[in-house]
């Protein structure tokens, strides 16, 4: 069956069957590859997207559950006020290494800053816990979130 999804402000249609993770609709069907596959079991955060603004693991979110909600991916972040600030902070601090986790890190960081304008280091750790970075860029992520908060405050 065909379903309509709202993704990055556009309506798209998918034929994916029930039980198909949103991740694979985004990556394989829509060919938007900024959202990454890391574990498939909601334990690394590489696949993080926003569902109605809330960071969500798309590998464990199924296509039948996301009809009518707003799905946002990394590709839309440069147009988002918080997203752009996070990207600027990431650039200033050269946060990335291999970069494979960073779409997910940024999606989570944006979610955090949307609900907490000035997170402390502990609050960042707590919120970002589920986003693994095998390159261990953690301290720059922490600094990046705080720098983005500053940019947004200015």
């Amino acid at each position, binding site marked *: 069956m065909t379903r309509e999804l709202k993704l990055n402000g556009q309506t798209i249609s998918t034929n994916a069957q029930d039980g198909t993770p949103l991740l694979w609709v985004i990556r394989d*069907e829509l060919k938007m590859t*900024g959202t990454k596959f890391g574990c*498939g079991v909601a*334990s690394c955060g590489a696949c993080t997207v926003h569902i109605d603004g809330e960071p969500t693991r798309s590998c464990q979110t199924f296509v039948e559950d996301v009809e009518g909600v707003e799905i946002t991916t990394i590709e839309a972040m440069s147009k988002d006020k918080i997203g752009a600030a996070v990207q600027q902070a990431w650039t200033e601090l050269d*946060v990335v290494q291999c*970069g494979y*986790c960073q779409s997910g890190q940024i999606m989570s960081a944006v979610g955090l800053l949307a609900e907490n304008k000035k997170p402390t280091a502990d609050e960042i750790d707590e919120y970002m816990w589920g986003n*693994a*970075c095998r390159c*261990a860029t953690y301290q720059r992520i922490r600094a990046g979130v705080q720098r983005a908060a500053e940019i947004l405050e200015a």
Partner: protein
Amino acid sequence: MTLTTSRRRFLQGAAASTVLLVGMRANGVMAAASETTDINPFVRIDATGRVTAIVKHFEMGQGPSTGLTTLIAEELGVTMDQIDYDFAPSNPQVYNNLLFGTFQGTGGSTAMANSFVQYRNAGAAAREMLIAAAASDWGVDESTLDIVAGQITGGGKSAPIADFVASAVSQDVPAEPRLRTPDEWRLIGKEGAVKRKDTAVKIDGSGTFAMDFHFDNQLVVMIAHAPRMGAVVKSFDDTDAKGMTGFEMAKTLPDNSGVAVFADTTWNAMQARDAIVVEWDNTNAEMRSSDTIRDELIAGVEMGEATYQTRGDQIDTANAISGAAKVIDKTFYFPLLAHAPMEPLTCTIEPIADGGVVLHDGAQFPTFGHMTLTQVLGLPMEKVQVKTVLAGGSFGRRANPTADYNLECAMAFALTDRSRPVKLVWSRDDDIRGGYYRPAFAHRVRVGLDEAGQIIGWDHRISGQSIMKGTAMEPMIVHDGVDHSSIEGVADTVYNVPGMSVGLTDHAKATSVLWWRSVGHTHTAFVMESMIDMIASETDTDPLELRLSMLPGKTPAQTRMAGVLNKLAELSNWKAGAPDGQSRGLAVHHSFGSFVAEAVDVSGGGDDAVKIEKVYCAVDCGIAVNPDVIRAQMEGGIGFGIGHVMRDQITLTDGEVDQTNFPDYEPLRISDIGAIEVAIVASADAPTGVGEPGTPPSGPALANAIARAGGPRVTMLPMIDEVEFA
């Protein structure tokens, strides 16, 4: 490198589309041309003056796309904004790692070390040719001109390099271009001068990793792998997969190592693979449990005589120790570890019109991938291209003498009619369970101290599985039966260790093993630095002072190792010690040409959970080409090392891997580790490695901190069995 003169002339009419390429011919001679068919360039300058560095090392986050580009920009005289980078194609004659022979590959933290002169030469040659072209046009002497920020400038004139690209092509290639001297450097070693070149595409989702390849008519293949290493397919049943959406076919791989399951999309391939039932032949499979392997390894260091005596004389050392006032005797164990790069292994083979194929891969060893495809597909070298894209981490896993995942993809492609691209995808489970682990190792060390607390004998036994024997790397690394990578960091320790004897016992093949970020140093540094800390405690000596006393500066290496210790002391305010309520552990190690000292401050210990509050790091890696990339590699190397010693291990039950995915092979998390502060020792020595050397001292520095905090002295890893972490 040999540089000779070569002169080529081009038709005037070609000028509009002329590109200046400076690089190497297949015979290793520096050359310039305007067509890529003619030479393989390190630097390409198009008619608009746009410069591209052709980077021969893959980018797994360690920074060569920035570093090698910096070298070209520096010599040529362009800003970092005026230069792009591209990954080099596979060509082992031209893009070889100068430290690996005729072999293109990234490993051993050598990217900068082997490129530092080569890439500067290419940039300098391009600069001199552009200047020669301008000088002859302007009727001025070449020595009056320079290129600054992409402008050829001097003698009262200035023009963009674009104006002279066409005429530069026909200039002599300088045999020995003048390299800029350090006082002229605007980029190399300059804080804040260079930003990473790969950031932009990694923060907006646009960067292409191998996992991101998509061809409209592609087949996705996943492999039903054997649950036990060495098992082979007896038979399989794909009844349940038939009729599943997108399922195309399942076939046994020609080497019987697994069943290739083909489908139209990744998700459908995953589903179909799960539906296939395979019966395995375990005749040659690993059937032991990891406890058995561990017992065997520990027995290997407790027996009287090692297979290979690699340093000193065991009897002399034993005699010395028998007269000691005090003996410290410790056994260490290091479990199997997976690399678990963030991007699971994947590559795509695309058939192209000329009957050849293109391998799209985050290729760490393009030469092995290239050769593997030619062999499996029966194609000549020139019909196989390797296109390197961004790699989502590696930590050694993508470099494999067997080119394992390229081989799988090639075998799968060969099972098709070769008309459609075949994309191989590994899941995280495939990755965690897929072998090629950091081998398990055991060490036993007995150190004898005299009445004054001086070391009089150090007997060191190591037992583990060689990662090099039986591979193409064996001739390079294994000498007289000794795999140097099993003992590096012990037998060649920088310290003065009186009466040292080192023995190695190779463990029989237990499982498929591979290098892992920092290779043998992952275990040897842990043992050396834990032992030295135990000696310091036993003799009531300051651990930093004890180390310095063992580094009297008799060799340049000792001076540099002492140098990083002193730098660390300054950075961490060693004299004042850890903040109240915290304890500090120290470690220092030499690996891949670099020296790194680290101090870890922990809170807790004793009855309280341990928390890593802060890490200090001092590094001497020679000339610090990109200081911020170096800091990032230290930060990452520390996190990688600490995460694994804290809680990671691969275990086997009756030969089957127990772990499956991140929930039971738990990566370091952001909340596990506090801030890391890195200081770089100023140096005029040639650049050495940074990708790996941050890792070895991190584990023992943590172990030493925990012991000093009143926690256990952990010698059997992972720590989680004995230490509770906050």
